[in-house]
C-alpha cells in the first residue's frame, strides 16, 4: 500500500490506484473531463495534469499510479498555467452557447472555465463549424460543436451497455463523434450518456429546455420500475418532477439506470391519478371525504350479522408499496380482519444481465419478506379469484392494479363483479378501480417515505419529493386510519416507527433502522 503526499496531505492508497482516484477519494479536487470512475481510462482530455516532484514534465493524474514517497502538487503555479492552457485549447472551437445550452449549470467546461480558465479569448481566427442540434437516437439530441471529444460516450457504449454504436470518426480537429451507419444511440441505457457527457453535446430530448437545472432540488430515492432498485435522485421544482438522475451505489447500479426507469417520472403527474376517495352510487363513483369512505368500508367488511368474518375476506397487497406498508397491510388483514387470505401479484417482463430485472415493481422482495402471502391454509390469488364464484370469498381489499396484468385479466375482472364488496386502493384509475365499491387514492413512491428491499435483499430508503395530489395519502396512513375505524388502532407518526416495529417482529430485519440504511442501503438475508 503506497503512501504518498498530495498537496501536503499524507495519503495511503491501494497499489495500482491512480493519483486522480486517490485524490478524489480524499476530497482533493482535480479537474477532469474524460476520466469516469466506472469507465476505462482514456487520458485524452489532459485536464487532469498535475505536478509530480522529480518527474520531468507534468503528468496526467487519471493514468498515473501512485507510488511510495511520491509528492504531488495539484494546484502549483505550473499546474495552474498548464490547466489554463488546456482550457484555452478546449475553448478554441467551442461555441458561445451557454445561454441556450441545456447543460449550463451542470457543465464541467463552464465550471472549470470559472475556476481555471482565462477570461479572454486570444483566438481571432474563424471557429470551426460543425453540425448542431440533430437527433442521434430516440431519446438523444447531439450538438457536434459542443463536444469536447472526451470519448466517455464511446467508452460507455462499448464497456457498459456493450452495444458499441458510438465511435470517433475522422482525425485531428475534424474528428467527431458519430454513430455507425444504420444504427442509432438507442440502447436501453442510452440516456446515461447524457449524464456522463461533461458538456452539452448529448442532451436528453425529454428533459431539454423544460427547466434550468439550478432551479431543481434533488431528493434521494429509489427507481420504482423494477426490482433492481437503482438509486436515483428525484429532481423537483415547484412540486413537479422534471427528471430522475441515477445516483451512485456500487452494490446496486454503479452510476447507471435504464431509460425506462428514468422516464417513468411521468407516471407521478399523469392525468389519471386518483385524487379523492370514491364510493359507488349506482353505476357511478362519486367523490367523498375520507371519513365517509372509511366508515363505508368498515361497514362493508361486516357481514349481515354485524360481525367481521375473516374467512370470506381476502387481501391482495402490492409490490409497489413500501416494506412498512406491506407490514401494516399484513397485520391489518391478519389481526384486524382475521384472515390468512393474503397475497400479491407482480408483473413480469423484459430483463437483461445488466440492471433491468424481470419483476416490474420496486418491492416484490420486501412484500415477500413482510409475508404478504397465504399462510396457515389461507388462499392465494388464484384461489381467491376462484373462490368468488363458489361464494367462498365475498369481500376483497386490493392495493394496486398489478392483478390486471396477469393472464386472464378479463376473466378476473368479470368474477370481481360477483363480490359483495370490493375495495381498491391505488394511485391511478384503472379497470380495476372502476369495478370497486370504494376507491382509496394513494400516494406514489415519490410522495412518501419508506423502504424498498431490492432483488438482492438490500433495504433502501425512498424519500418524499413532492406532495401527493388532492386528498390522496400514503398507503401506510390509509391502512392505519382504516384500522382505527375498524377498532384495531395501529397508529404511527412516520414509516420510521413502523420500521422499528418490523425490526422487532421479522428476524431478517432485526438490525434494520433508518439511520443504518443511510443512502447506500442495508443488506438483509431475505427469504
Amino acid at each position, binding site marked *: 500500500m503506497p503512501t504518498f503526499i498530495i498537496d501536503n496531505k499524507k495519503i495511503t492508497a491501494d497499489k495500482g490506484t491512480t493519483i486522480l482516484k486517490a485524490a478524489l477519494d480524499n476530497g482533493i479536487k482535480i479537474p477532469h473531463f474524460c476520466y469516469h470512475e466506472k469507465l476505462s481510462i482514456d487520458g485524452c482530455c489532459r485536464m487532469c495534469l498535475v505536478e509530480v516532484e522529480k518527474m520531468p514534465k507534468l503528468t496526467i493524474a487519471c493514468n498515473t499510479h501512485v507510488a511510495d514517497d511520491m509528492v504531488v502538487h495539484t494546484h502549483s503555479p505550473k499546474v495552474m498555467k498548464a490547466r489554463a492552457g488546456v482550457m484555452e485549447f478546449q475553448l478554441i472551437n467551442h461555441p458561445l452557447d451557454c*445561454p*441556450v445550452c441545456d447543460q449550463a449549470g451542470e457543465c464541467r467546461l463552464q465550471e472549470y472555465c470559472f475556476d481555471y480558465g482565462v477570461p479572454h479569448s486570444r483566438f481571432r481566427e474563424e471557429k470551426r463549424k460543425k453540425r448542431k*442540434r440533430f437527433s442521434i437516437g430516440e431519446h438523444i439530441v447531439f450538438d457536434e460543436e459542443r463536444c469536447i471529444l472526451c470519448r466517455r460516450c464511446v467508452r460507455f457504449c462499448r464497456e457498459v451497455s456493450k452495444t458499441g454504436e458510438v465511435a470517433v470518426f475522422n482525425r485531428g480537429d475534424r474528428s467527431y463523434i458519430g454513430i455507425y451507419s444504420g444504427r442509432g444511440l438507442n440502447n436501453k441505457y442510452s440516456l446515461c450518456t447524457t449524464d456522463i457527457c461533461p458538456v452539452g453535446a448529448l442532451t436528453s430530448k425529454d428533459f431539454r*429546455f423544460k427547466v*434550468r437545472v439550478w*432551479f431543481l432540488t434533488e431528493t434521494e430515492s429509489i427507481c420504482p420500475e423494477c426490482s433492481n432498485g437503482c438509486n436515483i435522485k428525484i429532481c423537483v421544482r415547484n412540486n413537479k418532477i422534471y427528471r430522475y438522475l441515477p445516483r451512485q451505489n456500487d452494490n446496486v447500479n454503479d452510476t447507471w439506470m435504464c431509460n425506462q426507469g428514468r422516464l417513468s417520472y411521468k407516471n407521478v403527474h399523469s392525468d389519471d391519478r386518483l385524487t379523492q376517495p370514491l364510493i359507488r352510487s349506482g353505476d357511478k363513483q362519486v367523490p367523498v371525504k375520507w371519513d365517509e369512505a372509511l366508515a363505508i368500508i368498515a361497514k362493508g367488511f361486516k357481514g349481515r350479522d354485524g360481525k367481521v368474518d375473516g374467512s370470506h375476506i381476502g387481501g391482495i397487497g402490492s409490490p409497489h408499496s413500501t416494506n412498512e406498508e406491506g407490514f401494516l397491510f399484513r397485520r391489518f388483514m391478519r389481526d384486524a380482519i382475521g384472515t390468512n387470505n393474503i397475497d400479491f401479484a407482480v408483473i413480469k417482463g423484459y430483463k437483461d444481465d445488466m440492471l433491468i430485472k424481470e419483476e416490474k415493481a420496486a418491492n416484490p422482495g420486501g412484500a415477500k419478506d413482510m409475508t404478504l402471502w397465504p399462510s396457515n391454509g389461507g388462499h392465494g390469488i388464484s384461489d381467491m379469484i376462484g373462490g368468488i364464484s363458489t361464494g367462498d370469498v365475498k369481500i376483497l381489499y386490493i392495493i394496486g392494479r398489478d392483478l390486471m396484468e396477469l393472464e386472464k385479466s378479463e376473466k378476473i375482472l368479470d368474477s370481481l363483479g360477483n363480490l359483495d364488496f370490493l375495495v381498491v386502493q391505488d394511485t391511478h384509475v384503472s379497470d380495476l378501480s372502476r369495478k370497486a365499491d370504494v376507491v382509496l387514492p394513494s400516494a406514489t413512491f415519490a410522495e412518501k417515505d419508506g423502504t424498498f428491499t431490492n432483488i438482492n435483499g438490500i433495504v433502501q430508503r425512498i424519500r418524499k419529493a413532492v406532495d401527493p395530489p388532492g386528498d390522496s395519502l400514503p398507503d401506510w396512513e390509509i391502512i392505519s386510519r382504516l384500522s382505527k375505524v375498524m377498532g384495531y388502532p395501529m397508529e404511527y407518526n412516520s414509516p420510521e416507527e413502523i420500521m422499528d416495529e418490523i425490526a422487532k417482529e421479522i428476524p431478517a430485519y432485526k438490525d434494520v433502522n433508518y439511520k443504518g440504511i443511510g443512502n447506500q442501503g442495508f443488506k438483509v438475508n431475505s427469504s
Partner: protein
Amino acid sequence: MAIGIVKVKRNVKMTFWERSYIPEVLRGIAITSRHFFINLVGFIPAILFGKERKIFTVYYPEERVKYPDAYRGRPILVLGDDGVEKCVACGLCERICPAFCISIQPAETELDKERYPETFTIDQSRCIVCGFCEEVCPKEAILMSQDTEIADYDRKKMLYRKEDLLVAEKDLRMRQAYVRGAFARWNY
C-alpha cells in the same frame, strides 16, 4: 477646503412701510397669484405655438418629463428587429431577481436561437426595479424602460405576460446604448 460656519447677517430692521404689514401681505399675495395664473394658462403658448416654455410645472398626465437614460422603470422585453423576441429563456434573470418576480417557461424553437420563452411573466407588484435582470441578461433581451405607471386596482392585473412586456427594439436604442456603455466598463 476647510469647513467653517458662516454667520448670515439678517437685516431685521424694517422700514415703516414694511412694518405697516398690510401692503407687504398684499404684495406677497400678488406674487403667489401671478404664479398661479401663469401656471394655469402658461402652458398654452408652449403647446399651441411651440414657444419656449417658461415654467417648470409639468401638466401631468398630459405632459410628461423625459427621464434620463439611466432611469429604471419597469423592465420590458426586447422584440428584435426581425420580429422575434431576443430572449432565449436562459433563466439567468429568473435566477438573479431578488424579488423572485420573473417566471419563465422555456421551450424549443426551430429558429437558430434554439430556445425561446414560451411564457415569460413578471409580477410587477413585486418587482423592485433593481435592474439586475437587465444587467445579467446575456442577450440584451430585457431592458429597464421609462414606464413608471404600473399601479392598478387588482394585483392579478400586475402580472405582465410576454405579450405585455414586448417592446420593439427600435424604440429602445437609447437604453441599449446606455446599457452597452455602462456595462462595458466592467468587462463581463
